[in-house]
């Protein structure tokens, strides 16, 4: 029963977050001082170098208003927006590549970002926890000190510095890996997968290196604290083997805050990954977002923001739903 309540609670907060995200992305552009339609017409005029008749202008304005869902009252706009986004995943056409729909670009970019993020986050989290647990559990050993120093050194470095250093060393000086991502479109063959992997090494490494520092440090601190718990002392006095104590007692208990920590830092990981994509010209959501922002492509920008909110919220939900597997206090009451 407690588990059921927990799950329902998670879903409720998931939908509340999505709804708030939807609402903000609806109102934000409408509160902006610049009018996207006027701006578009202005750009069109300056590009074409010709002036339109007032009639033509009014016509164009109306058509654009319809296409971008800017006609009618605010309430009817809002309802129409909710219907389009929720039921049809329709974020409207791209301004910059009119009339191609925004969703097409997102569908193409999303797998890149998700692939990069899921693998790197899992790798950094797993390795960081394995190292951190050992460093905390054997905190007197020299290896633990070395590991802590590594963590302390890596942790405060921002993503982009790590990325730039990696680009400098491996891309520029050693020329082992490419400076930017170049992947030709085409069917997913084995050879293409290799190219993708090869191109993803440096972006992935940047995210892993930063994530690793954080994971090592927090897991070390948690393990070190949990080592002093009464149940660890009692297990030792029972004669439980040290390995079992480290894994089932210290490790299992330290993992719970680490899962919560991962959930909480998902947003930061996502924004970090977006930066990395821009630096490596990696064809994911980050690059899409930046291009949209610089070209004033509002539909694209808000579409990518919405999908990002959706992705982070869903990942959080998944982690929240996994959490009871590790914590029996939520499973059983």
């Amino acid at each position: 029963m407690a588990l059921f309540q927990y799950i329902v609670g998670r879903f409720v907060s998931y939908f509340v977050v999505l709804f708030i995200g939807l609402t903000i992305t609806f109102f934000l552009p409408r509160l902006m001082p610049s009018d996207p339609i006027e701006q578009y017409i202005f750009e069109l005029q300056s590009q074409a170098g010709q002036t339109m008749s007032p009639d033509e202008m009014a016509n164009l304005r109306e058509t654009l208003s319809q296409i971008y869902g800017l006609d009618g009252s605010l309430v009817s706009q809002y309802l129409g927006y909710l219907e389009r986004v929720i039921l049809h995943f329709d974020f409207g056409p791209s301004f910059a590549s009119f009339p191609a729909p925004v969703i097409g670009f997102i569908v193409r970019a999303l797998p890149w970002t998700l692939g990069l993020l899921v693998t790197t986050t899992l790798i950094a989290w797993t390795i960081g926890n394995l190292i951190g647990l050992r460093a905390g559990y054997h905190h007197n050993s020299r290896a633990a000190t070395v590991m802590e120093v590594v963590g302390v050194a890596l942790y405060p470095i921002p993503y982009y510095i790590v990325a730039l250093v990696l680009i400098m060393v491996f891309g520029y000086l050693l020329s082992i890996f490419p400076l930017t991502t170049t992947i030709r479109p085409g069917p997913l063959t084995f050879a293409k997968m290799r190219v993708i992997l090869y191109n993803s090494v440096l972006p992935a490494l940047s995210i892993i290196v930063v994530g690793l520092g954080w994971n090592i440090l927090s897991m070390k601190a948690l393990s070190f604290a949990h080592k002093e718990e009464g149940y660890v002392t009692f297990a030792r006095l029972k004669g439980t083997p040290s390995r079992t104590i480290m894994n089932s007692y210290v490790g299992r208990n330290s993992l719970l805050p680490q899962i919560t920590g991962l959930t909480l830092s998902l947003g930061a990981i996502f924004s970090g990954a977006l930066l990395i994509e821009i630096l490596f010209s990696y064809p994911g959501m980050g690059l899409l977002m930046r291009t949209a922002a610089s070209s004033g492509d509002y539909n694209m920008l808000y579409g990518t923001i919405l999908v990002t909110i959706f992705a982070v919220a869903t990942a959080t939900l998944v982690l929240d739903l996994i959490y009871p597997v590790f914590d029996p206090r939520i499973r059983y009451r």
Partner: protein
Amino acid sequence: MIRLNNIVATYTTTRGEVSAVDGVNLEIPTGKIIGIAGESGCGKSTLLKVIYGDLIYPLALKTGSVQYGFDSFGQEVTTSDIKEYWFKRISYIPQSSMSSLNPVIRINKQFTDHLDPSTDKAKVLEDVRAYVQKLDLPPEAIDAYPHQLSGGMRQRIMVAMGTFFNPDIILADEPTTALDVVVQKGILLLLMGLQEETKSTIFFVSHDMGVHYQITHKMLIMYAAKVVEFGDSDIIFTEPLHPYTRMLIESLPTIGDDHLRTGVSGRPPSLWEDLTGCRFAPRCPLATELCQTTEPEFKEYRRGHFAACHYAENTYQSSEIAILYDHHPQNQSPE
């Protein structure tokens, strides 16, 4: 016979070393419940740690050893190899069951994770299920997670863990202080019953002299890192040899007694001070010049009754004892 041979145990601190158990020399008969009493900080837990062989930094055994009174391969087991017998021949019941159980794994796993990997754990758990029923626990309690059980049930689980493997020696450091009185009584009766059956030796630490009176066979009184008195409980509670023991007993409230208990006034000396003479002398109403300068020897005054007091032989006749005797629960009409 369990022998404590001249035990000096020290803690290493930033200020230097401090002896929390300072020269304990004692032969303890097996098959009894041995109560250990004394004020906070006198070294009760430290003595238990030494007996258990849990000598990890900052605690170290400066001198001495423990002989456990049982053999392995023809050799008597001593401090140096007692670790191998943890939860086989010597076990330990901790104070708080809540903090001593891992919250995220099932009790059945915690019951067996110290066993040799070759053991048939399913078979052991089968026996455990039968065993815990004897302890008034439902057999499925061992399949639960700790938070699913009540405090009393958890403490019974701790007792079950400590006794199931049928150890020769059981150490219990205030095993019931965290529980309410009714539950506490149940646990104590349980411990007594199990001891009666298995004839194991239980070292039982408690601040509660009433509990000591009810369940122990022998009493060991500690004061400032030293054992000051040791003997049969019924004698200790009626005719203590050491004035400190007498003060401890006097602090015991009795039913139907309306005059305020005096308790033990003053504080024990810091172990960092220069401790010459009798350590209890500053608080002792009977202290003389001799007590200030010369440490009393811990010796046998009557058969099996030891004390460390220069005036052990005359104190037990004092009139205060007579008053105390009148108030003793044993001499009152039954509750």
